[in-house]
């Protein structure tokens, strides 16, 4: 095995190294998971409690705003959206903060840096699985049975992962040089919750705004979730889906490109 180090040469072994270091990715995700609820009194219950509280707030909001018009129980309708939203938002927050949270590693040891934000998304994915159990429980309680559309669910989870990874890579790399983005991400996540169809259904958005609305890639993902989970009781407009897929892939390409471009300077800049 021979390694050649030259200016601009880092790319040469990149993908091979990424494969070789795959166990490290697993360990980093595992580390974040096992550390996350250390020294908390209720531990992993937080993974359920947080979405449950969000759910409560939104259901209460719907009652007050008189938004009840679907046949699906409110709780299930909202939960089917809280789930992908929470996965996306925590994956995005954690991956974009992941590089500066691992300064020690980056400045001391070599490994493909891509591992760090990907591990952060894997961590968010585990929380997602726990919350998925909560949704399953609620559906059983309210007697909402999914149909064959449920088989499409992994595709929408993947889409949410692709979108958060793309944006996360871009923001993580930007944060290394510009710490401003540390303040941008929480803001985006907060605003995103209100402009995404979490508390309401896309059908409640006025017709003339739909085109603008399609620019939010989370719309297609959340609608897709509802569509596949609620057994056809929630519609999925193809336009939203196409837009989501295109924007997510676009984000991944741009994010990965910028990340790879700036990666070799991380150790010097961080």
């Amino acid at each position: 095995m021979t390694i050649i180090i030259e200016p601009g040469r880092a790319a040469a072994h990149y993908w091979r190294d990424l494969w070789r270091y795959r166990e490290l990715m697993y360990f980093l995700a595992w580390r974040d998971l096992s550390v996350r609820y250390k020294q908390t009194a209720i531990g992993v219950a937080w993974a359920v409690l947080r979405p449950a509280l969000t759910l409560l707030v939104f259901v209460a909001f719907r009652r007050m705003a008189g938004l009840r018009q679907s046949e699906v129980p409110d709780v299930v309708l909202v939960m089917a959206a809280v789930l992908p939203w929470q996965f996306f938002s925590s994956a995005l927050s954690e991956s974009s903060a992941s590089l500066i949270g691992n300064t020690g590693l980056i400045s001391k040891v070599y490994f493909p840096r891509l591992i760090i934000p990907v591990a952060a998304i894997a961590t968010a994915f585990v929380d997602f699985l726990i919350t998925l159990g909560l949704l399953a429980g609620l559906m059983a309680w309210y007697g909402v049975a999914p149909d064959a559309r449920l088989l499409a669910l992994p595709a929408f989870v993947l889409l949410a992962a692709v979108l958060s990874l793309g944006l996360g890579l871009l923001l993580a790399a930007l944060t290394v040089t510009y710490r401003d983005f540390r303040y941008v991400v929480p803001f985006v996540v907060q605003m995103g919750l209100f402009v995404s169809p979490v508390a309401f259904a896309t059908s409640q958005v006025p017709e003339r705004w739909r085109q603008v609305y399609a620019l939010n890639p989370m719309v297609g993902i959340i609608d897709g979730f509802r569509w596949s989970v609620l057994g056809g009781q929630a519609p999925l407009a193809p336009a939203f889906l196409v837009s989501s897929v295109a924007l997510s892939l676009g984000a991944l390409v741009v994010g990965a490109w910028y990340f790879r471009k700036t990666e070799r300077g991380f150790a010097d800049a961080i």
Partner: protein
Amino acid sequence: MSASVVSVEGVGKRYRLRHRHETERYATLGEAVVGAFKAPFRRLSGARLPAVTTDDFWALRDVSFRISEGEVVGIIGRNGAGKSTLLKILSRITEPTTGRIVLGGRVASLLEVGTGFHPELSGRENIFLNAAILGMSRAETARRFDEIVAFAEVEQFLDTPVKRYSSGMYVRLAFAVAAHLEPDILIVDEVLAVGDAAFQKKSLGKMHEASRSGRTVLFVSHNMAAVGNLTSRCVVLSAGTVAFDGAPAAAIEHYMQSGQRPSGPAVANGRGPHTAVMRARLLNSAGEGTDIYQPGTPLRIEVVFETDGTPRASLEAFLIDAVGQKLALASLHQFHGVTLPSQRGRFRTVLDLEPMWLASGSYSFDVTTSIVNSNWDHYVEGLIQFDVTGSNPGGQAWDFRHSLGYGALAMSCARMPEFLAERDGR
């Protein structure tokens, strides 16, 4: 001579430095934007504004050497000579700006022990995590787990979070993981500065073993005794270039004697929040500036400083040897209860220190002002540089040189010893 496993050719590393009145760690978008707008005006308004200029700084320049399989090579040099940069390039943490390096095997670097240790995780968990970070597979780690634990001597604490470990245990565990990696090329930086004597000995043994089994070791340390013992060859870096490459003893000698001597009175840059060390120099018995100290005479250093009158400020000086080791401390407050004047202004003072029998060699003083029991206020490294050119408290012909590795101070007898005959047994 076997084929080279490490071949470094013409390697250079350039850093772009941004200068402003104070160095800032964080760049923000705002700075970039404001800077862009200010730039044209700055020229018009003269140089009063804090200028942001970029400057090229070559941390390494045209460094070349080759290392054969199984060689243990020491890399020595002063702080800032480029050692860390070279290691970072070799371990692929950062890229070189010029040149080419060919490494013939798996590289593991130990740039700092305990990298990636998580305080909340247990010893057991950290072993696996750390091993993965250093490039070891899970199966490999599991296989060597018992060995690692035994080496680190932490059996009873395996399931305790490492934040509850003593610093000694922490370091032992970290080194143990790294020592059981089986890379073809092992890069070690300063690990031996930690741990107790017994553990250091064990660590050295482990490195010997590594080199005997055909592994190549690159070893960076300020511990000249360890470098001398362990390595078969040394590369001396100075100001980013290779100054010497050869046998360890000769390299250490070269390193000790290559004190960079700035000419003229030493002037400090920058200032602290309350005070500033302006300049300092060594005085001879006639009260003139000098850069030679005659051992056994009073050691006088003159310091000029400014203060804003802050009440609890003190002045300290550290005596540093050629290897960067702190040898001695002089402190106005801690040793004499004296604080700096509490009125604003610039002052000159002379610390008239007790005579010392320093060994021949190069020394320097770090001079600092401090806020008592709190923090350094303005710390200036290597402000005074001086030499001792001959040392023997008894006036014998033998020159007690620091580079011999026998220490930096001669202990002389206050009165000549007597020899009293003593009968064996009773």
